[in-house]
């Protein structure tokens, strides 16, 4: 079983590489895959150490079929990244039982690299980079062990492959920057049904509480100028219209995903100050490009604005994406509300919340107009002894009644829900807007970081003549939530980390630096695309923004790299040129001739030394050992290259 041309330590390299690659894929492999690989590896190592024979052919085939069935049972398919990666790990584990020839080991190395590719395609977080690099290094080292020839220890392979990879790095960076990317895709894959934490497409009070504790980033925004004031940092996500008494949902039908782009945001007038910013959005499940209110749709054919001003992506957002956006906090919509839309935003489940309904109708009757009514409801929330908490009591069937007149405690979802309930009961079109509120300013990266725990819900009411108006009932209950300038990590809402961080400013700085690094990684490395390539080409002064300039830059860089590699590899091993000894002595001759001490043509080197000794004893003294060495090397018995090099060094140093 012992692989040819490899010592035992070197034999471990491909196995370690395979384990590292499987580990990089651990998150989407079937649960049984890693233990099975560990068993196969243990068997293989034991078999090699004890010289056990490989299992019978039928047993191996049966094992492979068994594993394939396992993959099918786990995923119901062999297609897709997760199932494919699991299948690859399983088949490679099966291969370990019959790995004999060098060819088998090449196959295992190839599978390892494919697994690494699968991991790269699936996850691109910065913290995974060391694992990927380790896997690549081990794979490279194991390939060096497959060259044939006398076996070498693993350390040698590791050292030499590290050097080889380091030399490959400039090429990788060059190609990364200039190899023309595709603006689109050859084919698309169905998205994996994977749950990504974040906002969802529906809201039942109690749902956001869980998210509020997550420190995961939701988006990062880099503003051209100063960021907007804290009070304006409302990041608009899914807008919820339909309420069944428990859960708020997006409205199915009009105003959703498809066919809404044209009519929708067209009535918005973008007036007032503008904030231009570039945003990197983390993957989400709701398919909304969460953007600062109210942002113009980006110049991206896959993003459209809906009638309720959401920026909807035509494709699920499965990877972090960047958008160039401009927000107009004071944008207005003067269009009349259509009857259909009014119906949607006035609907309430029947027979629910009788007290709240009666309360709203009474208050509306006392108010001069809708705006005054909104103000008095807000005043009620501010002065009614309401408490903001992340751990509210459960609410029953009449949730608004219980909150407003019973428990009087809740978080943004509760208050937004109850507020919209009151508005609709009074005949004012209203809806719930979910998204994020606030954001942490990262001074190291110069961007605003919005985390999942900044998830928020507020309300919008439609006032005649003024259009949709944002109203944040939670701000009435807990004004500090809005006004606080979030400069440091942990915003104080039940986060245990806050007190810890507060006492250690260096930790805050370190975490900000780490986040800034992550942001750079996401924006400039993972998010590097065709458009940015063109931008880079332009910045480097190539003028035209097309792929030809990229190709020229790539070609030039490639030539330079190849020349550098040729030179470096050559330098790695110095080879003495034929008659280096003779040439070295001729240089000494020339030097002495310039000093007026030319050697005659007929004169031997040793005789010349003797002649010099008479007139210039000091010169002869210095020259004599060299001359003796020279004669020995040229005319004596064969010498080793090391001795020759020593002479060459001495001859060069001679002055």
């Amino acid at each position, binding site marked *: 079983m012992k692989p040819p041309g490899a010592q035992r330590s070197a034999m471990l390299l491909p196995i370690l590489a395979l384990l590292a690659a499987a580990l990089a894929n651990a998150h989407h492999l079937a649960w049984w895959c890693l233990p099975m690989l560990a068993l196969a590896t243990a068997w293989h190592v034991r078999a090699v150490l004890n010289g056990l024979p490989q299992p019978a052919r039928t047993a191996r085939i049966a094992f492979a079929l068994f594993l394939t069935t396992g993959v099918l049972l786990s995923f119901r398919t062999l297609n897709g990244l997760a199932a494919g990666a699991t299948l690859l790990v399983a088949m490679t584990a099966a291969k370990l039982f019959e790995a004999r020839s060098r060819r088998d080991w090449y196959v295992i190395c190839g599978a390892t690299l494919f697994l690494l590719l699968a991991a790269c395609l699936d996850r691109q977080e910065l913290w995974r980079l060391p694992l990927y690099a380790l896997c690549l290094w081990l794979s490279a080292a194991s390939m060096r062990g497959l060259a044939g020839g006398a076996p070498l220890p693993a350390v040698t392979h590791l050292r030499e492959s590290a050097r080889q*990879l380091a030399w490959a790095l400039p090429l990788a960076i060059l*190609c990364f920057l200039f190899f023309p990317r595709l603006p689109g895709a050859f084919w698309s894959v169905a998205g994996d049904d994977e749950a990504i934490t974040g906002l969802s497409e529906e809201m039942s009070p109690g749902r956001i509480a869980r998210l509020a504790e997550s420190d995961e980033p939701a988006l990062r925004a880099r503003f051209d100028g100063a960021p907007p004031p804290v009070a304006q940092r409302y990041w608009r996500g899914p807008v919820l219209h339909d309420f069944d008494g428990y859960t708020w949902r997006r409205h199915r039908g009009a105003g959703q995903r498809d066919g809404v782009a044209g009519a929708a945001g067209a009535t918005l007038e973008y007036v007032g100050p503008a904030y231009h910013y570039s945003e990197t959005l983390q993957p989400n499940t709701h398919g909304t490009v969460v953007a600062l209110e109210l942002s113009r749709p980006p110049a991206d054919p896959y993003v459209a604005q809906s009638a309720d001003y959401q920026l909807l992506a035509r494709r699920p957002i499965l990877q972090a994406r960047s958008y160039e956006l401009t927000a107009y906090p004071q944008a207005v919509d003067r269009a009349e509300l259509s009857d259909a839309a009014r119906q949607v935003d006035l609907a309430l489940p029947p027979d629910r919340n009788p007290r709240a309904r009666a309360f709203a109708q009474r208050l509306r009757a006392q108010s001069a107009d809708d705006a005054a009514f909104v103000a008095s409801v807000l005043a009620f929330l501010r002065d009614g002894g309401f408490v903001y908490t992340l751990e509210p009591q459960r609410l029953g069937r009449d949730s608004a009644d219980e909150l407003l007149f019973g428990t009087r405690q809740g978080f943004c979802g509760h208050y937004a829900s109850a507020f919209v309930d009151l508005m609709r009961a009074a005949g004012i079109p209203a809806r719930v807007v979910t998204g994020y509120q606030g954001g942490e300013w990262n001074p190291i990266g110069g961007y605003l970081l919005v985390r999942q725990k900044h998830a928020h819900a507020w309300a919008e009411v439609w006032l005649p003549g003024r259009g949709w108006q944002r109203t944040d009932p939670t701000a009435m209950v807990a004004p500090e939530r809005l006004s606080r300038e979030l400069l440091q990590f942990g915003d104080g809402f039940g986060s245990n980390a806050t007190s810890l961080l507060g006492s250690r400013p260096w930790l805050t700085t370190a975490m900000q630096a780490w986040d800034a690094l992550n942001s750079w990684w996401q924006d400039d490395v993972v998010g590097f695309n065709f458009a940015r390539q063109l931008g880079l080409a332009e910045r480097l002064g190539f003028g035209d923004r097309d792929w030809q300039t990229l190709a020229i830059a790539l070609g030039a860089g490639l030539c330079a790299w190849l020349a550098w590699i040729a030179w470096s590899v050559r330098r790695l091993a110095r080879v003495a040129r034929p008659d280096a000894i003779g040439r070295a002595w001729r240089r000494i001759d020339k030097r002495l001739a310039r000093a007026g001490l030319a050697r005659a043509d007929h004169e031997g080197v040793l005789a010349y030394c003797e002649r010099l000794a008479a007139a210039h004893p000091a010169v002869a003294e210095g020259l004599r050992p060299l001359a003796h060495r020279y004669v020995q090397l040229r005319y004596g018995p064969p010498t080793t290259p090391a001795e020759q090099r020593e002479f060459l060094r001495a001859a060069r140093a001679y002055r």
Partner: protein
Amino acid sequence: MPGALRRRLAGRIERWARARQGPDTLPLQLQARRLYILPTRAGLAFALLLFIMLVAGLNYGNSLALFLTFTLAGFMLVGMHECQRTLRGLELAQAQAADCHAGDDGLVELRFVNASTLPRRALAARTPGLAPTAFELPRDGGATVQVKFHAPRRGRHRLGRIELSTTAPFGLFRCWTWLYLPLEAVVYPRPAGTRPLPVPSAGRLAQQAAAAAHGEDEWDGLRAYQSGDSPRAIAWKSWARGGPLLVAQYAGSGGSDYLLGFAGLESLDLEARLSQLAAWIAECARRDAACGLRLPAAQAPPARGAAHRAALLRQLALYGEGSA
């Protein structure tokens, strides 16, 4: 590719390389312009793998996958240079071809010197159609390598090309060079033939008889009778006692003198005759008998020793080709 086309192409490439390189003289240092390099089968598979990775990376616009692909491509290219480095500057100090019998594989001895600060690994040398000899050269060191060559016919054999190759550092590329050394090996006739050794020459027999008569007992032992042994050397006494037919051997003289010629081989053609003579010389060597040659174009007095026999075989090898 059909065999014929392949052979024609190979021949064409060989002629091109030969014309390009010119004859090689020793000592020879391998320069870059005579080194050829191509990916191996594994290298082609690796290139295909890289291509798939590139397409996948481009398709998904996945920066990390692309970076991985480009790093591996760089890794491969650096390895390509290292592969060529393994041969470049390598010095062939000496080369010597040993004589051999036709039909056997001859050995050519190559002395390589590695005057570089790095070892040269996974080297192999071979002549067309024969298994390569693998070797390694330590840094600042040398090695003598024996490479087999195929010698089908008797006579002077001009050594064809020797291919010196390496797959270091990772087996994805194979770099090689063709050495066209001005080496000649003398190929002896293939020892073959079933005719018995001829009768030993009279001179030696007479001496033996005399020695026996004078009781100068240099008697050394007995050996089994073979057809062609002189009846006078047979140990009749032992045979009379019911033992096997044995032949007396004498120390110092070590058997008989044989003067080998074409006598009795007239029915064979020249090559078969020479083969029979070679077989007889081998038989003499086994018996440690002195042998000589008496051929129309070559004469040699009987003598013992490997050197003498080699000289005889050379004469046979070059029979009809002019001077030895």
